[in-house]
C-alpha cells in the first residue's frame, strides 16, 4: 500500500491501516480488530466512515463478523493481502521508480545496482 495521502477516501485509509497491521503481523489471524466506535474515536471520524472501511475488508474476506462478539481477522487473511499487494507492487512502486530514473538519466544497470545496494544495506532483508 502506498503512503496514505489526503486524496484517498477516509474509509480506504482506515481499511489500509488495518490491512498494514495484518500484513505486519500486529493483528494476528483470529485476533479481534477494533470496533467501529473505537476506530471512529481514535481517528476522529464519523462512525459510518469507519464502518465502511471495515466492511471493505469484510468484502475482501480479510475480516469476518462474529455475531454479537465483534470483528475478527479471518483465517488466511495475511496470505490473501500479501498476494493482492504483490500484484500491485510493480504498478505502485517499480513503474514510478523507473520513470523517475529515466527522467534523471539513470540507466537500468545503475538502477539495478542501486536496488541491490539498498537491499544489502538493509541486511538483505526482504519484507
Amino acid at each position, binding site marked *: 500500500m502506498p503512503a496514505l495521502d*489526503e*486524496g484517498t*477516501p*477516509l*474509509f480506504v485509509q482506515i481499511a489500509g491501516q488495518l490491512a498494514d497491521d495484518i500484513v505486519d503481523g500486529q493483528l494476528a489471524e483470529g485476533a479481534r480488530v477494533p470496533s*467501529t*466506535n473505537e476506530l*471512529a*474515536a481514535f*481517528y*476522529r*471520524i*464519523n*462512525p*459510518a*466512515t469507519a464502518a*465502511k472501511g471495515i466492511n471493505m475488508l469484510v468484502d475482501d474476506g480479510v475480516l469476518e463478523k462474529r455475531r454479537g462478539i465483534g470483528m475478527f481477522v479471518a483465517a488466511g487473511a495475511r496470505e490473501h493481502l500479501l498476494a493482492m499487494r504483490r500484484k500491485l507492487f510493480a504498478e505502485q512502486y517499480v513503474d*514510478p521508480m523507473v*520513470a523517475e530514473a529515466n*527522467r534523471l538519466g539513470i540507466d537500468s544497470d545503475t538502477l539495478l545496482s542501486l536496488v541491490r545496494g539498498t537491499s544489502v544495506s538493509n541486511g538483505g532483508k526482504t519484507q
Partner: protein
Amino acid sequence: MTPTISVTDLSRRYRDQAALAGVSLTVEPGTVTGLVGRNGAGKTTLLRIITGLEFPTAGEVKVFGAAPAENDAVLRRMVFVREEQAYPDFRVGHAIRVASWFYPNWSTELAEQLLADFELPLSRRIRRLSRGMRSAVGIVIGLAARAELTLFDEPYAGLDAVARQLFYDRLLADFAEHPRTIVLSTHLIDEVADLLEHVVLLDHGRVALDAPAEEIRGTAMTVTGPAIAVDEFVAGGRVWHRQRIASRASVVVPGPLDAAAQARARALHLSLEPLSLQQLLVHASGSAVEEKVSA
C-alpha cells in the same frame, strides 16, 4: 424510512431580502450533517424554521414527518443550541438542572462529565461567564439532552482550539454510543470535515451542494507543475481556478480524475492534490470564476 428533516421549496423573505429561496433537502436519521456556508447564506434562518422559531414565507418543513411549529410532540424530541445563546440570569448549575427537565433523554451522568471537562464553575452566574464558557454551557446542554434531533448553530463562539477539539471528541463518542441525528452549522469546515457524513452548502439562500462528505472529497483536484504541461493537461477541459508564478502554474479542475488522467498527469510530471472540503466550498460558493480553456 421517514427522513428526520424534510424541507421542500422553502423560502423566507425579510422585506425585500430573500434569506432562503427555494431550499429543498432531507436529513436522514442517524447521520451527522454539516450545514455550511458563508455568513448570511441562510443557515441560521433555516435552523430557526426547522425548530419552529420562525415561519417560512413559502414551502414546507417536516420534522419527524410533521410540521414543527407550535407542535410540542415534535419540539420535545429536538434540542437547538444557538450561537451566543441567551440565558435567564441563572447560575450554571441551575441552568443545567432546568434544562434537564425539558429533555426526556437527558443524561445527568454525561452532563456532569461535560461540566467537569469544560471546567465550568457551577455556582457562577451565566452572565458573569466568559464568552467561551457560555458557549460551553450550550454544548453541555446540547449533548446531555441526547435529543433525537440535535442542532448546533455555530456553537463555539469564544471557544479555543482545545475546547473545540473536546467538543468534537465528546460529540463523536456520545454519538457512537447513542446514535441520533445531528446537524452542525459551522464555518470551521476543515475542523469538522471528518466528522460529517453529509454536507449541505448554502449560498445566498440556495442549496449549492448537497452530497455525502466522502463523495465531495474527490470532487476537485489542484494540478500543479510547469505551465506548459499544465496547459497541455487541462486543454479543452473545465478549469475552476488558475494561478501562475513564473513558469509554474496551478489549476483547480473538477474531479475525480480517472486512472488514465492520473497517468497522463504523472507522465507530464504534474503533482495532483485533492482540494480540502473548505477550499472546495470556497470554489463551489461561486467566489471563484469558472473559465473555459481552449487548446
